[in-house]
């Protein structure tokens, strides 16, 4: 698979050239409006360098930045159809997908030559031309070096390392229903390992969770301040925290995927020319270099920009291991998007205490077995593990429109299946019962001789 996209990339690279961009920019500049409004979930640290660079390039145009959380931004754009902001600029591809489904995104003519059509497992831009990837990010593990040293913990490298009982109560994640990027990580693990083994791995890592945060930035925040030592986060949180002086490091596991962070023009934008120029600038070699600013630290989508990157900066174009192992299937992901969020919350987020206590009991039983091995104990532990690594939904069911459809906004003509509330109640009972049984089994195993 990697080879296939590498050739595409080379072909695209050959066809491109900096010169192509110049007339485009010049033409757009002629009719630029004096202002453009951009709505973004990115922090000021990220937006300011881009806005300043753009305003230097196009002195007649001022960019107004409105900062909102992704949710508030989507709600705002939905409610302001009559006079919307000009652009939406955020990480989570799912938010753009939601806007696109609601016919809220325009389809501007943007020159993307020189940018590979696919990076990592997925497409860089929306195939229908509604939104554009301007940077890519991969998910991985961020850790606080002081914390690991003080607690004498080994450095984790792979997702599977996080199953180690030494990390009990030291790991944090945000819920996939709250963070589009965590959602992609969970989906990546499920696609990379397979549905059942993927869930088994997630649930076992879940046994070590200290917290499931309700916002993506909550995780790096907690790792930065040392509330817990290890966080499952998107790469730039790690890089930017390190650049800000925090004692943290970031690693990519082999099962990761690269996800584009996007920009789009909103349907009915009042300043279309300025908006187009800004998007074009973001994708230009000049705009891409801003990504290497220490406060921004995201992976550019232009391969040539990496030549200017600091030493040790990851390069998905030369490092074939990065994001290449998983072929991310968008259709599969799309079908079970809401179901996956809900299932994760039912199995892990809302039942975290029960889950971690059961795993604690299993780990204690295994430690006891290691000292004094016996068949009965091993059988009980195996049974407990089996209970703790199951989900009530099979891969086929997750793709079944009657079940997955219960979690989607109703569309006319859909076959009526069970209601979301009914399924969720079922799953909740499943989780509570299984975790309680597993805990009992493990406690019996501990006493077995």
């Amino acid at each position: 698979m990697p080879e296939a996209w590498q050739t595409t990339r080379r072909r695209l690279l050959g066809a491109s050239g900096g010169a192509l961009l110049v007339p485009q920019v010049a033409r757009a500049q002629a009719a630029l409006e004096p202002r453009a409004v951009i709505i973004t979930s990115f922090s000021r640290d990220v937006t300011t360098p881009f806005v300043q660079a753009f305003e230097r390039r196009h002195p007649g145009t001022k960019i107004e930045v409105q900062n909102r959380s992704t949710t508030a931004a989507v709600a705002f754009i939905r409610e302001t159809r009559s006079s919307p902001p000009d652009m939406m600029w955020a990480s989570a591809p799912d938010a753009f997908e939601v806007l696109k489904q609601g016919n809220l995104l325009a389809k501007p003519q943007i020159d993307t030559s020189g940018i590979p059509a696919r990076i990592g497992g997925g497409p860089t831009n929306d195939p229908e031309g509604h939104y554009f990837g301007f940077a890519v990010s991969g998910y991985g593990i961020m850790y606080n070096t002081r914390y690991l040293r003080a607690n004498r913990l080994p450095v984790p490298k792979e997702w599977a390392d996080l199953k180690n009982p030494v990390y009990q109560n030291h790991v944090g994640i945000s819920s996939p229903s709250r963070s589009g990027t965590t959602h992609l990580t969970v989906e990546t693990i499920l696609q990379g390992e397979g549905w059942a083994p993927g869930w088994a791995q997630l649930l076992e890592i879940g046994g070590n969770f200290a917290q499931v945060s309700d916002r993506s930035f909550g995780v790096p925040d907690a790792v930065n301040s040392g509330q817990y030592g290890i966080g499952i986060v998107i790469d730039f949180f790690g890089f930017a925290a390190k650049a800000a002086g925090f004692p943290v490091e970031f690693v990519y596991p082999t099962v990761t995927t690269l996800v584009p962070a996007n920009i789009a023009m909103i349907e009915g934008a009042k300043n279309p020319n300025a908006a187009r120029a800004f998007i074009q600038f973001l994708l230009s070699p000049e705009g891409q270099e801003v990504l290497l600013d220490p406060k921004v630290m995201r992976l550019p989508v232009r391969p040539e920009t990496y030549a200017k990157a600091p030493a040790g900066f990851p390069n998905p174009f030369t490092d074939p291991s990065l994001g290449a192992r998983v072929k991310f299937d968008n259709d599969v992901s799309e079908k079970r998007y809401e179901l996956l969020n809900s299932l994760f919350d039912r199995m892990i987020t809302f039942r975290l205490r029960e889950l971690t206590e059961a795993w604690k009991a299993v780990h204690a039983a295994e430690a006891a077995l290691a000292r004094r091995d016996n068949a009965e104990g091993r059988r009980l532990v195996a049974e407990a593990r089996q209970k703790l690594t199951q989900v009530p939904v099979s891969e086929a069911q997750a793709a079944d429109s009657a079940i997955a459809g219960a979690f989607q906004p109703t569309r006319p003509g859909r076959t009526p299946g069970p209601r979301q509330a009914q399924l969720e109640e079922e799953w909740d009972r499943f989780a509570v019962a299984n975790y309680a049984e597993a805990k009992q089994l493990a406690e019996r195993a501990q006493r077995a001789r």
Partner: protein
Amino acid sequence: MSATTIPTAAVTRPWKARLRLEASPVQVIAALLVAAFLLAFLIVPVGRVFAAAFAAPDGGFTLVHFGDFFRTSLFIESFWNSAYVAGMSVVVASLIAVPLAVILARYRFPGAALINTLGVLPLVMPPFVGAVAMQLVFGRNGSVNLLLMDWFDVRLSLMEGLNGVVFVQALHYFPFILMNLTASLSNIDVAMEEAGQNLGAKGFTLLRTIVLPLALPGYLAGASLVFVKVFDDLATPLLLNVTNMLAPQAYLRVTSVGLGDPMGYVISVILVLVSVAAMLLAALLLRGRDYATQQRGGGGLGRRSLSRGGMVLAWCFVIPVLLLVLAPHFGILMLSFATVWSFSPLPDGFTLAHYATVLRETPQFLTNTLIYCGVAGLIDVVIGVTIAWLVLRTRLPGRRLLDLAAMSALAVPGLVLGIGILRTYFDVQMPNGVSLATTGLMLTIVYAVRRLPYALRAATAALQQVHRSLEEAAENLGAGKTTTLLRIVVPLMVGGLAAAFVTSFATAAVELSATLVLAARDVDAPLSYGIYVFMQSPAGRGPGAALGVIAVVTVAICTFIAHRIAEGERRRRSRGHNEA
């Protein structure tokens, strides 16, 4: 006690007579104006969003979602968790607030101004910064625990689970009880106490039989606010990552991108219903009793000097309590000066750079906050007094409904109100082409709506203590109802109104959830928005904390001034009384 006979009279009156409007034109106009305000900026916008709770897939009306709520064990469990946390928070908050209020109102205590001012600050917890600071101080690896582990090798789970939520909520919301109770206590006429003493009561008996019963309206006003606020609060459970409570369950559903399920709105409707029920219960407890004191101008309980031992005891209570409740604010202060603060009891180093960044980049946030929240506080005092007056002093039909409608704002999530306002007012254009929904004016109105319940409870408690005979006297001397209200009643309530203004103003200064939906441009944005923007990146933590410190200091100064005004007014009145 003429007031107590009126309800019976109303019941026995013939049906036809009850239909006749028993109100003056001024009362009707006042009620209509308040109703119009609530309808326009609370009920209609929120109703448009809440409609989803009752919508069937085909667009019709259904109650099936409410059935689902009661069939879902997670929601039922969340409901009881929320009730437990809210109830326990009232208990713990009372343990902190009641002794403080008694010390303040009953004794000559040199630290009174300090307690009055610092006692409000816990309410002013800047968003995000407050959360980070709380974790840095009390969290599982916060300063307290790191030091405890170093010295004694123990770790306290202060911020874990439901009891962690109770701990943080009690620290956060006890000022509601403190302020309302203090206002109430200082309105008790010294004559009452003296009467009690003449009858032979002293010490604890006096406190139990005279002082505490008379202070009940203030205490209940504060306690019911704490209960409802904790029941509906999201920030703390989310900060502690406790999701098995009702408000977070609603929030997580309402705000998840792309989720079209109605359950979030169902939970929101249930939150509103429970809040209204709690408020009704508090009103019911006060029913049939009369708390008003006739002789005004007594200037509160006779303040007595503390004995040497009493003074030591008082300081021994006040200092640790203040240290405890202000620890997060010390945390924010340190964070604002810190270079890097990670997994250590104190920051690695100190710098002034964050303040420089804030002053350079964002000068307008502070003035915007002062204007929006100051005006919102004034609106709240005016509307709060009007509603309290209509409810307690007139027989206008539907007056209780006004009270409940205003109180229900407490339970409406800010995000829901924000979306409702956008939906209703975005197409209304201002003369300069900007939408009305995203102007500073609308932010001010939204703050006023969201913080109205605080002002309303304080105003109601204050009015309950003014005896009707004083107004009757004024009316007998020829003053109209409105003149009486403005010249007699409002001046007598001034302490309670100061408390009302301060609570509204202070809590509006840190409102975030509606702000985040409505604030459109940097130049129109308030402090809380600025803090949010900074706190989204690791490098922004220091500047965010610096803005937080600025917010807290501003509120502290305003609180201090409000107390000085109220205290001056009280002193002026009590001097007049003594001379008479």
